[in-house]
């Protein structure tokens, strides 16, 4: 154990009356073993319930298996199918559309709020922050229920449109081939905007006030101040929020499952929904696992890539 090999501590001998612990050989062996005993439960549970199943996912992705009878080895066929299967392609394209809503909107909004606040800190921030953050803590299934109602045919959304005389704009939003996906995207934006804003505000507090003073002395206006001080200072947070929201779009499942099940047609299909349907409804477990592996790789690349990018720029 490290304590035995560490250099003498900075604490004065008076502190402990120097009651040296002398150890016999078995005791020392036990001490060397100690760290492993401390990490064993966590590591074991992680290995059994996350790492091993993930390895199993990779293994199963090389099989054609219906989940019941014996599977047969098909090599990379499940992967080549991904490039020819139009439903899978659609599900990944839909993720790109979702990224626009859940990454671009919350980040732009978060930046705007951060930029205005940078120049004039306010009273009552805590209350605003608590409220704007609220959607983030609500169960996604409950959020889906709320928005199913808002989007319903005679729900509040259409009601408002009718009231202001835009009857022709009313839709059965979630049953519409064109509008269902943007409608779900807006829900994602509703969930994630608060989180992004809070992260940007935290980042803002890390920027030294002297930089703003200097910019003001130089006569910088609000816009120049934003581009020379605020934006560069928020680069790290920008990386975090981008990663977070893009991964959220890639992994979206709960919302889609409750609101549309991927429909109408495949207009709101997402990879998570495909994995679920193939693995548990249509008996194509191998194909589901191949999608899962691809999804994991994309999530990994996005996470590592964006953070590499942010770090390189920082230098």
């Amino acid at each position, binding site marked *: 154990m490290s304590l035995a090999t560490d250099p003498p501590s900075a604490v004065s001998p008076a502190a402990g009356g120097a*009651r040296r612990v002398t150890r016999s050989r078995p005791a020392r062996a036990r001490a*060397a073993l100690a760290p492993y005993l401390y*990490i064993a439960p966590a590591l074991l549970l*992680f290995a059994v*319930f996350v790492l091993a199943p993930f390895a199993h996912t990779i293994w199963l992705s090389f099989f054609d298996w219906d989940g019941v009878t014996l599977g047969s080895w098909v090599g990379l066929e499940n992967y080549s199918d991904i490039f020819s299967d139009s439903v899978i392609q659609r599900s990944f394209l839909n993720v790109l559309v979702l990224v626009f809503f859940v990454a671009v909107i919350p980040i732009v909004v978060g930046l705007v709020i951060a930029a205005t606040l940078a120049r004039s800190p306010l009273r009552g921030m805590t209350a605003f922050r608590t409220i704007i953050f609220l959607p983030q803590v609500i169960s996604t299934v409950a959020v889906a229920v*709320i928005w199913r109602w808002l989007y319903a045919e005679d729900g509040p959304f259409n009601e408002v449109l009718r009231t202001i005389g835009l009857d022709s704009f009313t839709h059965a939003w979630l049953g519409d081939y064109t509008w269902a996906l943007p409608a779900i995207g807006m829900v994602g934006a509703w969930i994630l905007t608060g989180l992004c804003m809070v992260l940007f505000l935290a980042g803002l507090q890390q920027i030294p006030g002297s930089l703003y003073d200097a910019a003001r002395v130089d006569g910088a206006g609000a816009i120049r101040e934003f581009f020379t001080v605020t934006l560069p200072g928020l680069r790290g947070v920008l990386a975090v929020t981008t990663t977070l929201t893009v991964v959220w779009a890639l992994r979206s499942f*709960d919302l889609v499952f*409750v609101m549309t099940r991927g429909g109408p047609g495949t207009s709101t299909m997402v990879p998570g929904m495909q994995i679920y349907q193939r693995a548990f409804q249509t008996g194509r477990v191998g194909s589901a696992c191949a999608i899962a592996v691809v999804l994991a790789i994309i999530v990994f690349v996005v996470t590592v890539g964006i953070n590499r990018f942010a770090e390189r720029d920082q230098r």
Partner: protein
Amino acid sequence: MSRSGEKLLTYAILGAFSLAALVPIVGVISLAMNEPRELVSGFALPDRISLETFRYAWEAANFSTYLQSSVIVSFAVVAATTFFSILAGYAFGTMRFRGSTVLFYTLLLGMIIPFEAVVVPLYYDLRTFGLTDSYWALILPQVGLNVSFGTFWMRAYFRSVPRTLIDAAHIDGASPWRTLWRVLLPPGRPAVVTLMLLLFMWTWNEFLLALVMIQSEEFRTAPLGLAFFVGNRSTDYVSLAAGAVIVALPVVAVYLILQRDFIRGMFTGALRG
């Protein structure tokens, strides 16, 4: 723009986004206060406030059972994950041992592996052992997944503890175990509380695992019960609203009481994939 004008604009922007966050929530609460199965169109305050629909959801629609399952699962996952994370975080944060770096980064993989990539074989593997359709199927995988973040979080705390504190305890003859619980952990209470809050929120709101693992109604968690409720009463928006409020309330209540710890935790929690 003048200073006060700028301030006004900021308030206007913040106010607008606060409204956007609040209106759907307030709308659904007021919807739930109508009589059960009433047809309500648009935003409208109920003529008279009725809690009848909540009673209906709680009793007839079995939300009491779903909440009970969620309480059991959340309690077990939060307790076990916190305990194991403290142990592992302590070792990774204060001890030097062979392989510690590799093991730590392996554990961190759990923060970026999407659960969708684990859940399919997990179902078939657990079924082999007869563990599906039980609380175990929900508890064990979530502990396994969450110890990643928990260990990461607790390690950061233990590394922030002054080295001299550990050495002093050692010189006093305290065993590592005693040092952990009597010396290092008491000042770390805020870190532990924040971790437990995050774990509680994640576990309570988890949906995919429950959907895959659970068949019997008695084991359904709150979000899963609500999803089935949507399937059964697709357009009964009043009852659905009551269900959504019941499912969301526990986490929202905890959040409103402890929002400071919550939001601080989310900064780091956000980094979890």
